[in-house]
Every structure is written in structure tokens, then in C-alpha cells.
């Protein structure tokens, strides 16, 4: 078309409300997209639809009672949330957790990481339009949830970790079942790499989308696979090792360009690494106590502490202020997803991305709205 005609044609930008009810927002997130035709000019996330003020609830609960509420923060990775909270209170009380409990924590934490990344992997397929990977991902996740269920009785809201240890020992037959899963899952990972990662359409959809530079990643304090996708090798399990991670062999995969494809690959490789960790931990787990010796009624000393833990989606930090009573004076939950959503405009604004790319970018930061809104 001649430019003269284009000039005469009246066009205008328009707003698209993506969400709160939209198939691709992974929950009740609302993105206000300013669009020029199919192109996204800017994005304004609107959150809070799932807000229940977790922090205020915690101020009215005793320390052990808060544990079930942490399940519901990031409900796709409840185990690691439990862990993050337990670690925070333990840091305040200076509790030494028994070795066996630490191993159990690592096993379930890493299984949870695989389960969570499987959901991500499936949703990524779903976001790009391939539905079957979603079902495959959930199928494998079911096996992990079976392991959770036979140990602690629940699949999603596990409430398994306790301050100073874990609540239950491994049931009979767990070792065999977990080993069988590891054996079953390894070839599956290869299959999935062929099915989705190798697919030319999928690669085209993911590469070069939603770039986040290293500087921006640091300035916005993103964490976990998003940070590593931007090429920064930072993993709390390696760099500030807690629990028994120093005794286990694993690598920290990083990306190069910081686009959706890198974030996807980082998560995919993390699944392999987590599988390795689970395998080692299952072999090395010593016998021993499950709970440290802690008083029945918990009264952590006066003080405050900020502890962060590497969860599947990034670092979950708890800022805990104690006034010496049985209830925390203040808990601030610094959720990684909250930060990642705030980084969304940085990834999308004015880059000429299309609406489909917005969906892919949102999928690639893998948010859970339970944790964003708290």
C-alpha cells in the first residue's frame, strides 16, 4: 500500500484486557495490554485478585500453625514453601536439623522441583498451542504426587515439613517406588526434548522472545530460572548452600540471551539435575531422627531474620520479626513470582512483540498467582 493511503487510514491504539479470565494467564492475573494491531506496545500487570493477606493471617497464628498456609502460597510447589518457612524459623531459633530430616527435605524438595517444572513444561506447550505436552507433564507429575501422598497423605497441600525437621518418615516401599520413578523418568525427559524442545515451531515461538538483560535482571532482583536464564550463575543451593546440598553433586544450568527459550531450557535441564540429586539422596540417606529437639510451645527469641530459599520458581524469602511470643510479630513473604510479574513490562514493552509473544513471555516466567497475590 502506498504511504499516502496509510496516512489517510485512521488507526488507533487500543487496550486489551487479558484476564482475569483468560486461558493463558495461569490464574487470575490481569494484563492490560496496549496494542497497535497485533503488536504489544506496553503491558501493565494488575494483580491482587487472589489476595488474602497471608501476612496478616500469620500474625494471628502460632509458628507451627503457619505451615499449612505456606502450602497455599505457591500451590504448585508446596514442599519448598514449607521448607523456606521452616528454614526461616530455624534460623531465628538456631535449630540444628537432624541429618535424616535434611535428606528427606532434599528428596522431597527436589521431587517438588521436578513436579513444578513439569507443570511449567506442560503449560509452555499449552501456551504455544500444543495440548498434549500438558497432559504428558501432568501424567509424570502424578507419579511424584503419589510419592508425596504415600508419605504425608496429601498431594498438593502437603504440610510435610516441620520446624526442626519433617513430620513423617518414609513409608515402606518408598525407596523402590522413587527409584522406579527415576528410572522411568530419565528416558521420558529425552522423549520430551524431542517432542517439544526439538520442534521447529516451538523453537521459533520461544527464541528471542521476552529478553531480559543481565543488568535488568539484577536491578529487578529476579531469581531462580529467570535469573539463570539471563546468564547469571546464581543458585542458592550452590552459592549459599544450605541443608545437605554440599554433599550432593549437581550442576547449575544457565542460559545465554535471557529469552523465553533460555528460561525454558534452564528449567528443562534443572529437571535432569534434580533427578540426579534425588538419586544420590536416596542412596545416601542415613538413619536418624526426624525432628530436632525443640520445645512443644515455640517461642523464638526476640529478633528478626531474612532467609531466602531456592524454590522451583525462584527465591522465596521470609522476613520474620519475632517479639518473643508464640506468634510472629510480622512475616513478610517475598515471593519470586511477585517480582517476576513486576519484571514483565521490562520484557515486553516497546519490543515489537505480538500478543502471542506476550503469552509466551508470561508462560516462560512461570508464575503461580497464589504466590503473587498472597
Amino acid at each position, binding site marked *: 500500500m502506498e504511504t499516502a493511503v496509510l496516512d489517510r487510514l485512521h488507526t488507533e491504539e487500543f487496550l486489551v484486557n487479558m484476564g482475569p479470565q483468560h486461558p493463558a494467564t495461569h490464574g487470575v492475573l490481569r494484563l492490560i495490554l496496549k496494542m497497535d494491531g497485533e503488536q504489544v506496545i506496553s503491558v501493565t500487570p494488575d494483580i491482587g485478585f487472589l489476595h488474602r493477606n497471608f501476612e496478616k493471617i500469620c500474625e494471628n497464628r502460632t509458628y507451627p500453625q503457619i505451615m499449612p498456609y505456606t502450602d497455599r502460597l505457591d500451590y504448585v510447589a508446596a514442599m519448598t514453601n514449607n521448607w523456606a518457612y521452616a528454614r526461616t524459623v530455624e534460623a531465628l531459633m538456631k535449630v540444628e536439623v537432624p541429618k535424616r530430616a535434611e535428606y528427606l527435605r532434599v528428596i522431597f524438595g527436589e521431587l517438588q522441583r521436578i513436579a513444578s517444572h513439569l507443570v511449567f513444561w506442560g503449560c509452555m506447550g499449552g501456551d504455544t498451542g500444543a495440548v498434549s505436552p500438558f497432559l504428558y507433564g501432568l501424567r509424570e507429575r502424578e507419579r511424584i504426587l503419589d510419592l508425596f501422598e504415600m508419605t504425608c*497423605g*496429601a498431594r498438593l497441600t502437603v504440610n510435610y515439613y516441620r520446624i526442626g525437621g519433617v513430620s513423617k518418615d518414609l513409608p515402606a516401599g518408598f525407596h523402590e517406588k522413587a527409584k522406579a520413578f527415576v528410572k522411568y523418568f530419565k528416558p521420558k525427559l529425552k522423549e520430551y526434548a*524431542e517432542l517439544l524442545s526439538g520442534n521447529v515451531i516451538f523453537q521459533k515461538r520461544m527464541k528471542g522472545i521476552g529478553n531480559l538483560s543481565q543488568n535488568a535482571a539484577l536491578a529487578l532482583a529476579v531469581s531462580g530460572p529467570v535469573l539463570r536464564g539471563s546468564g547469571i550463575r546464581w543458585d542458592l543451593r550452590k552459592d549459599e548452600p544450605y541443608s545437605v546440598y554440599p554433599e550432593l553433586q549437581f550442576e547449575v544450568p544457565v542460559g545465554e540471551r535471557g529469552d523465553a527459550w533460555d528460561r525454558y531450557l534452564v528449567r528443562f535441564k534443572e529437571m535432569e539435575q534434580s533427578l540426579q540429586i534425588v538419586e544420590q539422596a536416596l542412596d545416601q540417606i542415613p538413619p536418624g531422627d526426624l525432628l530436632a529437639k525443640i520445645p512443644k510451645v515455640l517461642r523464638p527469641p526476640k529478633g528478626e531474620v531474612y532467609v531466602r530459599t531456592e524454590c522451583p520458581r525462584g527465591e522465596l524469602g521470609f522476613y520474620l520479626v519475632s517479639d518473643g511470643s508464640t506468634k510472629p510479630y510480622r512475616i513478610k513473604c517475598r515471593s519470586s513470582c511477585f517480582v517476576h510479574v513486576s519484571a514483565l513490562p521490562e520484557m515486553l514493552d516497546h519490543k515489537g512483540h505480538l500478543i502471542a509473544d506476550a503469552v509466551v513471555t508470561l508462560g516462560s516466567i512461570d508464575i503461580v498467582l497464589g504466590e503473587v497475590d498472597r
Partner: protein
Amino acid sequence: MWPYISGIIKGFWSLLVGMKITVPYLGRRAITIQYPKQKMEMFEAFRGRLALARDRETNKEKCTGCQLCAKACPSACITVTQRKDEEGKRRSEVFEIGMSLCCYCGLCVEACPEDAIVWVRDYEYSVYDRKQLLVDKPTLEAIWRNSLSQFKKEEFNEKVA
């Protein structure tokens, strides 16, 4: 020119590889179950439904009404009051659980010193009326008794098999 052609061939090949993975599934068995017809066997540890257990031999109440469960409950959905029975032992008078508030965390079961409040592996407990979610003591004990008969059936089946 060559990258263009090789790109087409590689892309085409990757699509064939994708088909190679999905098509064989057509011949495999489904892994899901037909729920109301088939039912899942739950694990021993499954946190299904709360119940109030009695002593198996003497059929006496285990609960002493100590209210530890009520104190442990994060959502404060358990109401317990205490009384003394004919023998002068402490028993619970009222024992109510508001299942609409319950978050199935199991802290009450862990807190109970008498193992009176227990998990039952039942998972079909939807009701038609919200009022029915306030479960009182006789119902809680009935749930436990029902679960016992279920156990017996399973044991019987095992013996037959």
C-alpha cells in the same frame, strides 16, 4: 540458498519426530480410570476425612476432651468441651469440626495424645447442604466405624485372593 533448504528439511524432520512420539500412544492403554465405576485405592497415610476413634476392644471413647487439637488447629474449626463420665474420667462433651473451614493439614491428628482423632481414607464426602459440613461427635464416630467395616472388607478380599 542452502540454509533455506536445509531449514525446511530440518523443520520437516522435527515435525516427523514429534509425530513419532505421539502416534504410538494411540495404541497404548489409557492410564486414567473411569471414576465412579472404578475407584482409587488410597495410600495408608492418605489424609481423607477426620474421624473420632474409640478403643477397638472396649469400645470406650478415646477422646479425653483435652482440647489440644482445637489449639493446634490453624483455622480454629474444632470445638471441644470437656465433661466427666460415670467413672469420673475426662471425656469430651461436644466435639464438632467445621469441615468447611478445615484445611486438612493434619496438625490436630499430630497433636492428639490419645490418638482419638484420626484420618480415614474415605474421599467421597461431598454433601448437599452447607449445614452438614458442621460435623458433630456421633457423625465423627460413625465415620470411624464405617471406615472399620471398609477395612474389614479389604482384609477379607485379601484373604480370598
